[in-house]
């Protein structure tokens, strides 16, 4: 048995320089990059994480974006029974204009068509008698559409009468829509949902990384290696910033190309804004991760913060009508400021001065919370 060699000491073999002779500078840099790389690779390969960080918010954007598209044009469906001279005689441009607001379907059975209007399958039924009288029967299911159909037909009858006199019209209405930015929902939704996505990614990312590392003892490994806390923290910041910028890019590309988002002049200011906000959200995550002992707890604490923060931030709906105390709650949460400032620079033509105070506030928030997290930070569970 080898053990019987008892206590005689072995001669330590000669080894080159004790423990890594590389210069301190090179050591720091390579540890920083390889740690960042390890985290990015892990995240990229984690399908669930990718889904929640990138696809899930995008699904919301597509969902809300499509909803907005539908409601912007109240298109009415009208059934035409038999020949209606009023419509049939319309030519070229006039007819095309009519088709933009009404979908006209030809039918023959009056009774059946009227039944369909009752059921709401058609918004209205139209019929013209031989004496020129135009009958309109409309459903009251959708009062806006009913009004629109009445208005449209009224003006069609008016202009037909006017044409029949052979005189040029005395008054001409020149109506043009004014582009109202606040109305278009995508302009409002994109900055809001982007802010929500960035907040979710950064809070959960920081909290779960910290708790996961503590539980799996990776944190202990880092502590036992000659890497500084600064290296670890800054590489985690780099990873969160890259994630947030990727989210921003994807959001803006999808929203501008598929949902008609129009960016205003200083939209690029959203980049430093998102960066500062990411630090603020990370500090929330660090705090949650410092307090929580398990991943489940970290998840719960993050959720308790992120969910109300999202709903009260104006990311999903405006906070104008909210009661005072709710407004106060939303005012202490950083997401609201990110959403407001990025709405300003992305879609309302805001400039540097709209973004700078928000950036300062977000950084201050991050500094305070990181300080608290630092105090509560634990390397080990027990």
């Amino acid at each position, binding site marked *: *048995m080898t053990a019987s060699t008892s206590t005689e*000491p072995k001669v*330590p073999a000669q080894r080159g320089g004790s423990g890594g002779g590389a210069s301190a500078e090179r050591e720091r840099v390579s540890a920083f990059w390889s*740690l960042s790389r390890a985290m990015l690779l892990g995240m990229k390969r984690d399908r669930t994480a990718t889904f929640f960080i990138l696809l899930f918010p995008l699904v919301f954007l597509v969902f809300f974006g499509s909803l907005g598209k539908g409601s912007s044009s109240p298109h009415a469906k009208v059934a035409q029974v038999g020949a209606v001279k009023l419509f049939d005689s319309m030519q070229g441009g006039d007819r095309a204009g009519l088709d933009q607001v009404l979908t006209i379907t030809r039918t023959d059975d009056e009774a059946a068509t009227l039944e369909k209007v009752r059921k709401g399958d058609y918004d209205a039924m139209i019929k013209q008698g031989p004496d020129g009288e135009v009958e309109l029967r409309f459903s009251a299911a959708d009062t806006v559409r009913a009004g629109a159909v009445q208005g449209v037909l009224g003006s069609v009858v008016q202009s037909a009468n006017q044409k029949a006199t052979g005189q040029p019209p005395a008054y001409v209405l020149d109506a043009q829509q004014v582009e109202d930015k606040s109305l278009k929902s995508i302009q409002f939704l994109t900055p809001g949902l982007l802010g929500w996505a960035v907040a979710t990614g950064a809070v959960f990312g920081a909290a779960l990384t910290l708790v996961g590392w503590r539980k799996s*003892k990776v944190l202990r*490994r880092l502590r036992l290696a*000659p890497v*500084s806390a600064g290296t670890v923290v800054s590489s985690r910041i780099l990873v969160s910033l890259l994630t947030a910028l990727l989210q921003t890019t994807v959001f803006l590309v999808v929203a501008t190309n598929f949902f008609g988002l129009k960016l205003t002049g200083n939209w690029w200011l959203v980049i430093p804004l998102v960066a500062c906000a990411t630090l603020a959200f990370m500090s929330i995550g660090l705090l949650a991760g410092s307090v929580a002992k398990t991943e489940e707890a970290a998840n719960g604490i993050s959720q308790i913060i992120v969910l109300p923060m999202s709903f009260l931030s104006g990311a999903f709906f405006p906070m104008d009508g909210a009661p005072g105390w709710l407004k106060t709650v939303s005012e202490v949460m950083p997401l609201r400021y990110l959403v407001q400032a990025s709405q300003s620079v992305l879609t309302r033509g805001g400039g540097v001065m709209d973004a700078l105070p928000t950036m300062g506030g977000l950084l201050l928030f991050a500094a305070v919370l990181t300080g608290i997290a630092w105090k509560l930070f634990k390397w080990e569970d027990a």
Partner: protein
Amino acid sequence: MTAAISADGIRQRYGDVQAVDGVSLTVEAGEFYGILGPNGAGKTTTMEILEGVRKPDEGRVELLGMAPWPRNPKLLPRIGVQFQASAFFRKLTARETIRTFASFYGVGPKRADAMLERVGLTDKAEVMTDQMSGGQAQRLSIACALAHDPEIVFLDEPTTGLDPQARRNLWDLLRDINNEGRTVVLTTHYLDEAEVLCDRVSIMDHGKILHTGAPATLIREIDDTVRISVASGQLTVERARDLLTAAGADIATLEDDSVSLSVSTRLPAPVLSVLAEQNALRGLEVRGATLEDVFLQLTGREYRA
């Protein structure tokens, strides 16, 4: 020459439990030192205090002449720690894992890959760590602990949960690490492992070191009885007792568990001759004391692995 490790009167309490209760030990440079004890004996806490990840309530520790607590960046490159659990980054391959950990010590990818080769994982380099078997994960963990060429290596139950083949492979690796001149500190559940690998062993229970010495010395020191057993059914317990007493044999225990008839004695010769006279030698086994007997005698309880 200073000792590689010296600890003096370390104590650690968790709530009501005195996990470590006044442990003092010295490990010489190049020694293979084992801490043996049942679950909850305080082995892991002792290791954590030695490594410097835990501050003891009382007592003093020095590694290579330096205090490991508070965190000492000068000392860290000179020690390597293998973990009980597989403490790896998520979703990385074996190669990416060891390269990442090596980089923390300023060690480049070539040396990291060489360590992978050293522990026989080159063909598993592209496998995700969560897909590896227990033995592969342990070898990777050891490779990560060795990548920066440390002088002292701490191994916390490295073979727990491995199959016998994987255990033996790992033993060869651990012996090599020690033969290169590294000081190795090992905690283990397994008595045979301590007996085979360690130059010196400390037996620990209830937070205290009960005894320290070379395994062979420890075994010789105890009142060594020899256990002789033969297959059951050749001789009844009563008949055996009568015959043995008549022959003047000194019997410590005598029992029949219906598989074998076993006798413990300090003087095997008369027992063996009685059994031979009775032609009752079928299934004969003679076993000397092991570390298990030492453990039993020191702690007064059955070894719970």
